[in-house]
């Protein structure tokens, strides 16, 4: 039970950290200044979620090991775990590609996160519920912003439509994993600690269809779902993020600002 709770908290944290890291790659590269600021502000919100989840995961781990020194911290969880220890969904680690792919990924994930946190704020675990309640307000805004962009690009110029259509094809194989329960999620469901993500898919599709209709985009059918991320089996792209993100702590252990 405790082990599952730690894994689940890390899964939620890793999703947020890796997505924040990916979006932040746009810093100083956004298509125009306002959108550069928007995507980096969104990254900051999501990084804040990651910090809250990591702090809680660290607390759970330290309680279970009962150690007095060499305590696990939010930083050690972010910087010192290896590829196989990360439990994020594959979707969030994929390369940004162009603006259309980045926006579409954020829309797919914000739509999912909105439903996930709506459920999680009623978790029996008070801390997970509190983090979800807090983050939900921000995610609502991310969903709104990314929805508008999906519509703008889909129903925009020939080029923008073509680019986001390519993005839909590239990202769809990674949507299915969001709704497949990992063992730790199933375990926690019995106690109402986690959210049954498999039950969120219909609502997610409803919202996606509404936005795609406006954007003149089609939802791909019968796409094979790539999985593994939630169990620690990642695409090679995660390795590159970690190499960059963890470099400083690996090269200069315990260095601080």
């Amino acid at each position, binding site marked *: 039970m405790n082990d599952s709770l730690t894994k689940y908290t890390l899964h939620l944290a890793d999703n947020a950290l890796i997505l924040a890291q990916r979006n932040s790659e746009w810093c100083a590269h956004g298509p125009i200044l306002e959108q550069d600021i928007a995507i980096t502000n969104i990254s900051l919100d999501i990084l*804040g979620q990651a910090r809250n989840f990591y702090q809680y995961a660290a607390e759970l781990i330290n309680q279970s090991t009962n150690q007095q020194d060499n305590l696990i911290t939010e930083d050690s969880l972010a910087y010192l775990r290896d590829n196989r220890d990360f439990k994020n969904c594959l979707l969030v680690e994929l390369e940004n590609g162009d603006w259309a792919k980045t926006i579409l990924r954020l829309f797919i994930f914000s739509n999912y996160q909105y439903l996930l946190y709506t459920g999680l704020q009623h978790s029996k675990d008070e801390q997970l519920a*509190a983090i979800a309640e807090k*983050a939900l*307000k*921000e995610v609502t805004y991310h969903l*709104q912003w990314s929805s508008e962009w999906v519509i703008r690009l889909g129903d925009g110029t020939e080029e923008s439509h073509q680019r986001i259509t390519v993005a839909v094809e590239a990202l769809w194989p990674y949507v299915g994993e969001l709704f497949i329960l990992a063992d730790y999620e199933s375990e926690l469901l019995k106690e109402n600690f986690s959210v049954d993500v498999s039950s969120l898919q219909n609502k997610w599709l409803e919202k996606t269809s509404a936005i795609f209709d406006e954007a003149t985009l089609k939802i791909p059918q019968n796409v094979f779902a790539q999985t593994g991320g939630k169990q620690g089996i990642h695409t090679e792209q995660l390795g590159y993020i970690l190499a960059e993100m963890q470099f400083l702590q690996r090269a200069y252990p315990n260095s601080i600002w």
Partner: protein
Amino acid sequence: MTDALIITKEKIFSILESVTDPEVPVLSIIDLGIVRDVEIESSHKIKITITPTYTGCPAMDVISMSIRMCLLENGFTDITIKNVLSPAWTTDWMSEVGKQKLKAYGIAPPNVSQQVCTPALFQKDEAVQCPHCNSYHTQLISRFGSTACKALYKCNDCKEPFDYFKCH
């Protein structure tokens, strides 16, 4: 011990009025509504409960440090600052005085959240008043301004751009 009896919660709240938001220096943390509780244990020992505005707001670390400095200056040596997430902060907790200060500073204060921020009214646009000329004839430029808590608007009457403190 006699000292402890004289220090009231009201006194602490008025001391904390001097701690301001580093990004919006006209607002005190009391105006912002982020101080949720004060527990005075003795003339030296105090516990302050605060709640973050935005999950990733970098100003929160500075605010915690400023609270600590302010209380140290006022004779407290044993200071605990506790962060709580629930109930989640809302701009409805911002004081009326705070909203007036924001407007005078050139930032449009947040609308009341029930009007526009519920998921049911998800894609409705807000009527935001220009802090310079009071016109409602304004236009959203970007949903994110200089910080996560602000959006960028333009007034179609006086033509001035301005920040709007988003309702949250």
